[in-house]
Every structure is written in C-alpha cells, then in structure tokens.
C-alpha cells in the first residue's frame, strides 16, 4: 500500500475542469487546483514553514514520552512505496560512510550489543493517522559519532534495501530520540515494519523514518534527490 496518490501525473481535461471549476477556492482562483500550481504554492511557502520548523526544533530536548499502557498496537499501518525486501539478519551489515574520517560497517549483532534505548512515542503519518509505538534500538547520534563525521557535514542520507531513500538535516538526526531500531512494542522488529533495522523518531513524519536501512551517508550537500516522496512533491523537512 503506497501513499494516497490520485492520478498525480494524468490530468485529463475532465479532471482539470472538475478541479478548476468547482472546488471551493477555485471558484475564486480559476486554475489553481492543479498539481503543478500546488507545487508552486508549496515551493513559495515551504522555506518559511521550514524556518519555523527549525526554530521549533530544540535539537537536544527530548519530546515527552507516553506510558507503556498507551501503546496502540493496531494503529500502526504498513506503508511501503514498492516491495518488502527479505534481508538475512546473519549477513546484514549497516554501512556508515560519506564525509567521515572513519567509514564503518556494523553487523546486526554488533548493533544489538550496544545499550538498548527504548522510547514510547507517537508515530504520525502524513496521511493523517497516528499510532503510539514503543521502539527499541540505538541512538543514531552514537552511530554517527563512531564514524567521526567531518565538520562540514550538514545532512544524513538513509538508503534502504528496497531502493527507498531519504535525507535529514543533521540536528534532527542527532536528536536523542532519533533511533535506529530493531525492536517494536517489546518484540523483535517484523519484516513489514522494517527489519532488521529502521529509523524511528518522534520529531519527523512517518515517510522520513526509512525501513530496511542498509546505508547511512553523511554529506555537506543536499543532493538533487532528496527523498522518494520529497521528489514527488512532499515537503523535505517533515518536522513534527
């Protein structure tokens, strides 16, 4: 199941007429309901919204968590953009490289040996639903520190086994509740939820929280490809 995406690219004449003719605001702003015009509106206002999001983000202040009793096991829906990759945990390796002094590869057992960080947070999907989930894993900041990033690093890319890609701002990646998790609701992470290793964080929308992560890439430059959904038109920062 992918994100809701209604004929994004095929804008028939009939649909165009419907979009422009009758929708609430289009009565006044003829032609503004189209996807390409909406993109322009987003590009115009997103810098302002992103600035506000950056101001709201206190990079080292944890977001209040929920009690274990608040967990909503049935609310976390499964979203993938394409297919569910099967990864052998025995041979899995996480690569951390890019503009770093100590590029490294970690086996799953090595990550699991690190002290377990657990959090109960609200996972919020761009579609509008949310779920309170317990995640267990390691702090991303601890993994990044191991790789000794160069001073110029500003962005973190997550590359996944299914071809999904994402990029984050460094302060959000270094947030103490941004984790690489291998556990969900006190159970080992299921394949559908991103096993063996995925991103989990209370401060970003669900599509920023990549599943099946195999490579973390640190860079000083945001590449033209910012993320699978961002490249389709979703906002890049996606802060909560």
């Amino acid at each position, binding site marked *: 199941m992918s*994100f*809701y*995406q*209604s*004929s*994004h690219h095929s*804008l028939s004449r009939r*649909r165009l007429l*419907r*979009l422009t*003719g*009758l*929708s*609430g*605001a*289009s*009565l*006044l*702003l003829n032609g*503004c*309901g*189209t*996807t390409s015009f*909406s*993109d322009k*509106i*987003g590009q*115009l*206002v*997103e810098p*302002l*919204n992103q600035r506000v*999001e950056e101001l*709201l*983000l*206190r990079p080292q202040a944890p*977001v*209040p968590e929920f009690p274990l009793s608040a967990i909503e096991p049935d609310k976390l829906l499964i979203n993938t953009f394409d297919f569910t990759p099967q990864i052998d945990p025995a041979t899995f390796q996480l690569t951390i490289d890019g503009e770093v002094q100590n590029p490294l590869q970690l086996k799953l057992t090595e990550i699991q040996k690190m002290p377990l960080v657990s959090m109960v947070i*609200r996972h*919020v*999907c*761009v*579609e*509008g*639903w*949310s779920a309170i989930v317990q995640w267990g894993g390691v702090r991303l900041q601890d993994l990044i520190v191991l790789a000794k990033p160069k001073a110029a690093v500003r962005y973190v890319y997550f590359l996944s086994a299914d071809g999904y890609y994402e990029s984050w701002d460094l302060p959000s990646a270094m947030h103490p509740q941004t984790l690489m998790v291998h556990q969900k609701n006190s159970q080992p992470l299921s394949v559908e939820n991103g096993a063996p290793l995925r991103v989990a964080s*209370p*401060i970003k929308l669900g599509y920023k929280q990549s599943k099946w992560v195999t490579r973390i890439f640190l860079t000083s430059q945001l590449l033209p490809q910012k993320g699978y*959904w961002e490249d*389709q*038109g*979703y*906002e890049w920062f996606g*802060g*909560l």
Partner: protein
Amino acid sequence: MTSNPVNSSQLPIFRQAVFVKMIHWINLISLGIMIGSGLQIYNANPVFGGRAGWHFPDFLTLGGWLAGGRDWHFAAMWLFSVNLLIYGIYIGLTRRWQRRFVTASDLQVLKVGQNPKRKTYAWHRFVYTAIIPVLLLAIATGLAMYKPAHLHWLSGLFGSWQTLRTLHFITVPIVVLFAVIHTLLALKIGHWRMIRSIFF
C-alpha cells in the same frame, strides 16, 4: 432599524470600513482554501472509518493529491491566522468588540424579546460572535496535529488523536453552516444592501 424592510429604499445606508471589508474578503478566501485543501487531506485517511471510510468527491477538494493539498493548507494557514490576528488587534484597539459583538442586552432580547426585528438583529450578532471561538479552535487543533511533538502541551489538551482530528474536522461543517445562516440573517436585516456593504 425603524424603516419598513419591504421598501428597501427606506433602509439606512450600511457602511463598512475598507479595512473591515479587506479582512472579510481575506477571511472568506483563506477559509475556502483551508476547507478545499483540508478535505483533500481528509481523503488520504478519512477521520471516520479510515481508508475504508467515505471520501469527499474530487470537486470539493483542492490540490490534486495529498501533497498538493498540504501545500495549499500550510500556505493558506498563514493568510487565515495572520488575518484573524490582525482583526483581533483591530477590534481590541478600536474597542469595536464593545459595539459590534453580541451583548448582554442581545442575549436578553433573545430570551424575552417581543420585537422580531430586534430579535433578528440579536441573532445576527450572536451568530457572528459565536463563529470566532470556532475559528480559534480550528487553529488550535490544526497546530496540535501539525506539530504534535514540539507543541505537545497543545496536543495533550485534546486527549486522543481521533478526538483531535474530529474536532479539527467538525469546524468545517460548522463554518459552512455559519456562512449560510450569516448570509440569510444579513439578508433579512438589510437585504442586498447589507451584503454589498461588507464586500464592496
């Protein structure tokens, strides 16, 4: 309001400050965009019934798809809320709230009043005063869902996520219903002259 409403030439001339007309226009347009794009966002995962729930028809939605709806929603939110803030400062500075909003005397008229024209006027003031807390609720619930982590104190006020979504959504039918009643009451009080006075 002593003239005979049937003969509109005897009606008083309604005048609105240019500033108020502008605020009314911007409020109307930004609310239209907020509702159209909001219904687009609603359709991505309906508040009632989730993905299997009833969806709004395309012609009521703005933006073409979810990302486009969000583009509009998070652009028009500035227009809508800053406009409302400016209005709030304006009615505070000019003390307009003392003269233009519903008063204790209006409420008394609604309870025991015998003059139908005075009663309609009291209803008109009551209705357009009552929409203001609804608009503020729309902003508060919207912010609580837009930034639930950083504004956790706000999100926490509304209980569950479903309550939050329901409260945010319910402002849409209330605003639509308000627009109809508000227009009908204005027509009843001052015919098209009164409608024209707020627009042109």
